[in-house]
């Protein structure tokens, strides 16, 4: 069951258990999450024929909950993109906005949900890759607190930033899916037990989707509105009005640190990528570089053939940022910026229940528009990247449409392990 908007890379069905909370649901899975016996390509020619010998922990949990996996979804190669146009299997088109990108990098996951070809989906979010496509396709996406969901079996791009997150038509369904995948895993030592942070009912996310925002205090970082498209900010303020009408109030906050989030994110993510993707040498798996010449020559050939342009670019920039003479200038300064962002966002959350902004500062781009100028594409991540740098949870909910009928998302950011706060607030809108 392929789709005309190219949402799936592989459509092999995987059946889950015969009962469980998701027994009637289809849950599509992003193609960088390992599925035993079903190829997992990461949207890359490098892994075109790679078939994992084991399931990712989140896939084991989906199957145990009774979910049927209808296929593996298209994505930017190795998660590196904001538009799902860098896939070696061709771009995904936005099913609700013809001629436009679905957002990325989990664009296939959001697209199949928006089109009704899957009930729900899993994506991964390293700098906005669940929230951006959710916003552009008019569905709900959650980026969990770092350490809420196991990353075991997820092909690494930037380990210190990424989490697996749910995408669904409503906040309640996204919350239900998050409940299934969250929780400690002996195979991922970075996962924490949320009950130790938030008490016995810490994982009752579905119950939190009650839409009760009476008394909710919303902080709005004005830095995230400054550079945003006017059509987007109009929809954003309408959504805030809606929340106010339901009993919430808001105040403006000033977070100067956010001006450096995109730079800090890209330096950090590229540096981690340059190290993580060193494993692709074409010997144990992936595109082979052949056997002519020495070790270095064949590896370099495998990587030239297997990686697409954006992946090469990020590995090279990461290698540069970590190399002798540049480490202090780029990588170390990016870590200073990350610590600053973490500290100041957490301070702002001491004075507010949640922080709100447009998820994306722009409406969905036209297909092909952002490929020529990567820097322009990076700047579209201005509102999502601070959340990953600060290890916090965030949700994107549909806020409305521009005059041209393009979806706009509202982002709500909560304190660490405060998934229930953002689910409750988000469920007042969707």
């Amino acid at each position: 069951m392929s789709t005309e908007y190219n949402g799936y890379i592989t459509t092999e069905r995987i059946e889950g258990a015969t009962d469980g909370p998701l027994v009637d649901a289809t849950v599509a899975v992003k193609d960088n999450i390992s599925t035993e016996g079903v190829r997992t390509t990461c949207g890359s020619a490098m892994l075109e024929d790679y078939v994992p010998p084991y399931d990712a922990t989140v896939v084991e949990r989906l199957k145990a909950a009774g979910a049927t996996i209808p296929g593996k979804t298209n994505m930017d190669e190795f998660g590196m993109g904001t538009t799902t146009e860098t896939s070696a299997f061709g771009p995904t088109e936005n099913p609700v906005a013809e001629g436009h990108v679905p957002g990325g990098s989990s664009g296939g996951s959001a697209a199949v949900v928006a089109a009704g070809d899957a009930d729900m989906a899993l994506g991964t979010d390293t700098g906005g890759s669940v929230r951006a496509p959710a916003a552009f396709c008019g569905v709900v996406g959650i980026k969990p607190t770092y350490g809420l969901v196991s990353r075991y079996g997820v092909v690494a791009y930037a380990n210190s930033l990424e989490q697996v997150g749910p995408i669904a038509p409503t906040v309640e369904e996204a919350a239900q899916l998050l409940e299934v995948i969250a929780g400690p895993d002996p195979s991922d030592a970075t996962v924490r037990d949320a009950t130790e942070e938030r008490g016995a009912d810490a994982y009752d996310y579905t119950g939190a989707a009650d839409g009760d925002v009476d008394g909710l205090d919303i902080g709005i970082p004005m830095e995230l509105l400054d550079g945003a498209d006017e059509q987007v900010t109009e929809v954003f303020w309408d959504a805030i009005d809606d929340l106010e009408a339901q009993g919430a109030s808001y105040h403006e906050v000033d977070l100067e640190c956010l001006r450096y989030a995109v730079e800090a994110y890209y330096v950090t993510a590229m540096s981690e990528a340059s190290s993580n993707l060193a494993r692709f040498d074409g010997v144990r798996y992936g595109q082979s570089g052949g056997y002519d010449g020495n070790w270095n020559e064949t590896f370099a050939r495998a990587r030239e053939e297997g990686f697409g342009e954006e992946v090469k670019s990020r590995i090279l920039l990461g290698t540069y940022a970590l190399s002798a003479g540049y480490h202090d200038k780029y990588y170390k300064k990016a870590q200073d910026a990350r610590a600053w962002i973490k500290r100041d966002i957490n301070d702002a959350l001491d004075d507010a229940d949640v922080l709100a902004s447009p998820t994306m500062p722009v409406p969905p781009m036209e297909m092909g528009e952002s490929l020529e100028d990567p820097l322009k594409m990076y700047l579209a991540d201005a509102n999502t990247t601070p959340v990953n740098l600060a290890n916090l949870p965030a949700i994107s909910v549909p806020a409305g449409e521009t005059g041209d009928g393009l979806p706009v998302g509202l982002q709500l950011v909560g304190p660490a392990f405060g998934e229930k706060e953002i689910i409750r607030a988000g469920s007042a809108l969707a």
Partner: protein
Amino acid sequence: MSDTDRVVDPEEVRHVADLARIDLDDEEVDRFTEQFADILEYFETLDEVPEVDEDEELANVMRPDEVRDCLSQAEALDNAPETEDGYFKGPNVS
């Protein structure tokens, strides 16, 4: 930025590609040279970021070092482009 004080030149792109073990064709070198100049210039704004001390509340997570089930040799070799006598086949080391 003028050509004389550009952040990155083609030689530097080739050098980094060599460190990262990725062959590039001439066209890619030219395109990356141009793009990297813009991107690195943008990254320069990090110079304005103050030094920030971080109180990390991190704890090591340890587990007993016990033998557990793992992939069989055949499973581990299944995705290899070539194998020989139950081993991965790699290129010459030197």
